[in-house]
């Protein structure tokens, strides 16, 4: 009898596992078919010199040459990476705290909540649709500077032409005196990017807050907890998995944002200087650095993450 029951259990678990594979198979196929080759190729390129000829590309093995280039020859790579880490170290916690605060506020019943939610998501929408806007702004700025814009009629596209960096010119356009603008910009520059990158974390926190049962708050209130207490004793612990997710998201977003100095450098080395192996090596070194930082943050966060026992 006992043996039979055991046997049944194992086969159930195995059946369960089979379904798991079934659910997961589309992803695994994509991973094997599309993703692994891409990663593998990129890794291979970092050890080879890539030259493009008429019949495709050719590789010449150069060993660690590209890595040496990235670390010692390129003037910007190491310096920019370090300064980026410094910036993000300051920025990321600020983004997290700000977005959690806004999400909690926006989760309450109040007039115009939908509009406010939309407004706080605007930067995300603006940030990805940047091409057209950049073009529009560049054509204008160029011609305002009395430059090539009018002569050639051709405008160049640079990412971020119409984002936070232009807050200064926007404020100037509002007829605020220049001195004050400079002060404001110095003050606000960092805060503005914090606010700007908080769009996605706010949304994630909001949907995380939906997962907390209102009954918990209700019983806390009945027991006499005030809003402050229930925030620290209920919201924060129950939301901690999402805080963890957001911490990871904010860090990765900061490091892989395509307008950050390293990404621009990697892009520049690959496509302007045609040193694709150099840029692959940089990408892998950078990847290693980000990985270490993420590991440290995960370890730290994991200790404070509280997974609700719900069964």
């Amino acid at each position, binding site marked *: 009898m006992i043996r039979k029951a055991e046997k049944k259990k194992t086969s159930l678990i195995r059946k369960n596992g089979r379904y798991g594979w079934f659910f997961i198979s589309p992803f695994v196929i*994509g991973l094997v078919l*599309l993703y692994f080759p891409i990663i593998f190729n990129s890794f291979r390129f970092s050890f080879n010199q890539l030259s493009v000829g008429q019949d495709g590309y050719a590789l010449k093995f150069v060993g660690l040459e590209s890595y040496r280039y990235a670390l010692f020859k390129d003037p910007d790579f190491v310096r920019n990476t370090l300064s980026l880490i410094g910036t993000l170290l300051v920025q990321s916690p600020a983004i997290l705290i700000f977005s959690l605060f806004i999400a909690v506020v926006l989760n309450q019943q109040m007039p115009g*909540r939908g509009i406010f939610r939309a407004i706080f998501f605007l930067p995300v929408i603006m940030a990805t649709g940047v091409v057209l806007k950049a073009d*529009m702004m560049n*054509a204008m700025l160029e011609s305002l500077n009395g430059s090539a814009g009018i002569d050639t009629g051709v405008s160049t596209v640079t990412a971020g032409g119409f984002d936070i960096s232009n807050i200064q010119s926007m404020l100037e356009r509002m007829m605020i005196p220049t001195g004050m603008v400079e002060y404001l910009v110095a003050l606000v520059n960092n805060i503005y990017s914090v606010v700007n990158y908080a769009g996605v974390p706010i949304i994630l926190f909001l949907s995380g807050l939906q997962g907390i049962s209102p009954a918990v708050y209700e019983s806390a209130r009945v027991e006499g907890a005030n809003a402050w207490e229930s925030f620290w004793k209920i919201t924060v612990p129950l939301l901690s998995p999402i805080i963890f997710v957001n911490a*990871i998201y904010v860090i*990765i977003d900061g490091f892989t944002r395509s307008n950050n100095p390293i990404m621009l450098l990697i892009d520049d080395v690959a496509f302007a200087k045609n040193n694709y192996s150099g840029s692959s090596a940089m990408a892998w070194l950078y990847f290693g650095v980000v990985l270490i930082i993420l590991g440290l943050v995960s370890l730290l966060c994991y200790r404070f993450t509280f997974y609700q026992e719900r069964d």
Partner: protein
Amino acid sequence: MAKIKLHTHRLNRSLGGDICIGVFLFTVGLFMALPMIYAICTSLKPADELWVYPPRFFVHNPTFKNFKELFRILDDSTVPFSRYIFNTLFVTIVGTGGHVVLASMCAYALCKFDFRGKNFLFNIVVLSLMFNATVTAIPNFIIMARLHWVDTLAALVVPAFGSSLGLYLMKQFIEQMIPDGILEAARIDGAGEFLIFFRIVMPMVKPAWLTLVIFSFQGLWNLADTNYIYREDLKPLNYALHQILSGGVTRVGASAAATVLMMIVPILIFVLTQSQVVETLATSGMKD
């Protein structure tokens, strides 16, 4: 899954506190809305105001001339403009739909099933979050070329399915929101795995996947990257607009108008899905 009408407005909240929060939100919100307001203002400026020096932030004599100009330019394009719209709609809708379903399925399996290699897979997903498109541009193209997907919409749609960010988010949300007990109860009642997934898991994590819809939609809608598409009639809307309107200073007004039109759609999607999120307040369905 009873819907509960909530009174989250606390009785002991003061009017002063409400006003403070309102003022704060308004100030920060205004800052975030500035670029949007600026874009709208620019799109409504007549030509002389676009070039006035010093430049103005607000429009003085609003006009719809820029929009008319935009439509006139679009009428002249060699490929019928509806074709671009179709391309983008196809890529966006199929890409978003596929991504949400596949990512949720995979996330569900990673959370609630036991099988070998599970943790390994999840680690790969987290690692792959760190690769930026710039970094993998050339290998990406090589793969697309080998699959003969260059110049097909598949090159845009299929990678969208596998965006690892969505999978990562869904895994965390399913872990937080779905108790094992409810799945067990459904299995005991004889529900199949697909039934459980579509009728129990997905409704319970609706706020999460609606969020995913927003992310995926606005990413694909604004797709301007056509490393894989060279045929004119397969190009997405954003790219086509960019191409048509980059004709220098005379098209700045029309370009601003196009920007505003392109922005409206993701904002609408956002508002629609968010209004859904608010209505999905539900208890976990478990009585502990």
